């Protein structure tokens, strides 16, 4: 069982480092790492579908936005308490993933990518169309008083960091556990050889749908968390760009690895941060990295590590 304990040690070590980081890093980086952890939750969501099940969705922004708007609108118009709004956000994301899954999973390969892209575009336009409620591109701000989690202020640097850390830790460890379960193994089997998995008697369609629902719900959770911690809800988060970014993070960190999403988000965040001294068109950097990755390193950082140094990497 050494392989499992090594992986567990790695996961717990990463979480411990994130706790230590809060006490040693300067304020600016503490804020950056809380944002990175929220976005890493989003990347974990896409990684389950893309990295483990082999389904490339180009429209995950709709799930992120479902969580974000589910949370934001519940607070704005129903004055719901934070926990209730969070649950509503998760339900919204799960329901959307169920509907999208039932429709989009009838297709495969390139058609699946384009269908998810178009569904996400429809969702984005719907957000703009109902600008009366969503305030469209401009978005709306959630007041500090509306963002009390059980009377606990999440707008302070400390509160924000540890709420982000807790949700990230739950998703990270839960995800690492999930891919070791028979369910996770079956998803990998589908990724490797769908026909064979079907021949062995697994209900491939049902597993793909389940994977998409879990993936969409995790992404929605990230969206709601973003709205809670940063107090802003806007249509930008539903745009194509926010479907492409998680793909970039997962590819960069290593699709189909547990630590890939966090590495990818962190690497990309600081790459853009460093480049912003020279240019403000940061999507240029994203585009370049995307092209170079597809050409030279389709397995990403963690994938290369697994291939060269640490074959036990989960």
């Amino acid at each position, binding site marked *: 069982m050494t392989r499992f304990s090594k992986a567990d040690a790695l996961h717990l070590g990463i979480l411990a480092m994130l706790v230590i980081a809060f006490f040693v890093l300067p304020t600016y980086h503490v804020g950056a790492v809380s944002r990175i952890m929220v976005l890493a939750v989003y990347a974990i969501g896409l990684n389950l579908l893309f990295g483990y099940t082999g389904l490339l969705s180009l429209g995950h922004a709709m799930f992120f936005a479902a969580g974000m708007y589910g949370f934001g609108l519940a607070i704005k118009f129903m004055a719901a308490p934070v926990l209730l709004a969070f649950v509503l956000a998760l339900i919204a994301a799960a329901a959307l993933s169920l509907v999208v899954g039932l429709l*989009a999973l009838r*297709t495969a390969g390139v058609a699946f990518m384009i*269908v998810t892209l*178009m*569904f996400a575009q429809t969702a984005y336009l719907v957000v703009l169309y109902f600008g009366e409620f969503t305030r469209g591109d401009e978005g709306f701000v959630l007041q500090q008083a509306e963002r009390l989690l059980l009377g606990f202020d999440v707008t302070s640097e400390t509160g924000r960091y540890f709420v982000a850390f807790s949700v990230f830790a739950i998703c990270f460890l839960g995800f690492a556990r999930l891919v070791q379960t028979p369910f996770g193994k079956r998803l990998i089997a589908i990724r490797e050889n769908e026909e064979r998995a079907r021949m062995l008697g697994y209900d491939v369609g049902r597993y793909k749908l389940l994977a998409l629902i879990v993936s969409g719900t995790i992404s929605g959770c990230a969206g709601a968390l973003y709205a809670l911690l940063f107090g802003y809800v806007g249509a930008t988060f539903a745009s194509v760009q926010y479907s492409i970014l998680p793909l970039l993070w997962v590819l960069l960190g290593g699709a189909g690895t547990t630590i890939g999403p966090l590495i990818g988000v962190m690497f990309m965040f600081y790459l853009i941060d460093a480049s912003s001294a020279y240019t403000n*068109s940061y999507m240029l950097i994203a*585009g370049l990295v995307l*092209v*170079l990755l*597809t050409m030279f390193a389709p397995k990403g950082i963690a994938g290369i590590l697994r291939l060269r140094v640490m074959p036990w990497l989960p």
Partner: protein
Amino acid sequence: MDFGPHLMLATLEGAVIAAILVLTAMGLSIVFGVMRVVNVAHGEFYMLGAVLAWFVTSFLGGHPAIGFVAAILIAPLLVGLIAAAADQLVLKHIDYDPDRTIVGTIGILFIIQQTTLMTFGPEARPVAAPFNQRLALPWFEFTDNGFEMFWPWGLSITSYKLFVIAAALTVLVALWLFLTRTRIGLIMRATQQDSETAQAFGVPVGLVYSCVFGLGAALAALGAVLVVPIQQAHYLMGADPLLLSFIVVIIGGLGSLPGTVIAAILIGMSDGIISVFFSPTLAKIIATFLVAMVLVFRPQGLLGRTST
């Protein structure tokens, strides 16, 4: 204006949109047909055509017609070369794997778009049309005095818009002749039908792929040069043509060229007519959703023959 003249005006506007769309969507369709890859950066090649047209015309100065003729020759050629270079550099390297090509062309999309933003700037810039007479159009109606012809106020089209429709038709016929009557066209069709057998018969498939990718991008750029005197050049203008071209290619049946032409005319005309009478956002929502549904339930397209 009455409903009749209004509808005629909308139809004419729709015909102009359809003319541009036919060219852009043909580019996407040829690339998909021959190479079996989806080029997500197609809209950026369109945008690049419009931006280069602005550079060429403002560099030459003088009468707008000189700049326009130069732009229509230079811009598609340059864009075609850029696309062929991208094909050689990136797509060839990943062996035209369909999934990785999508991710790679998304990267190319952002590189082209952001480079344009850094050099061309965020402003929308106009290009003067070479000629632009306003032509009033007559309308016929039965009145008490029998069949009468009159000139409703506002019912008009510019000579340039008529030229766009004629130019698109000319290019389409030329493209058809090129594909069916020339040796290069024959080689392209052979590669489309079976690239391995074509390779075995000595067709330089790699070179054909680069040419096809360049040709597809050049068609998009040509459409953009034609549209830029009507609609200004802007670094984000590629998104709508990309979406519309996708819609056209999917409705027309992936890779079927006659299907693409019919679908482009249908979509272009209805887009023109719908956006005159309804909210453009609502029209886009319905169109995008319906096309996704077509792809879900009829992946071979409405006019396609067999599923791929």
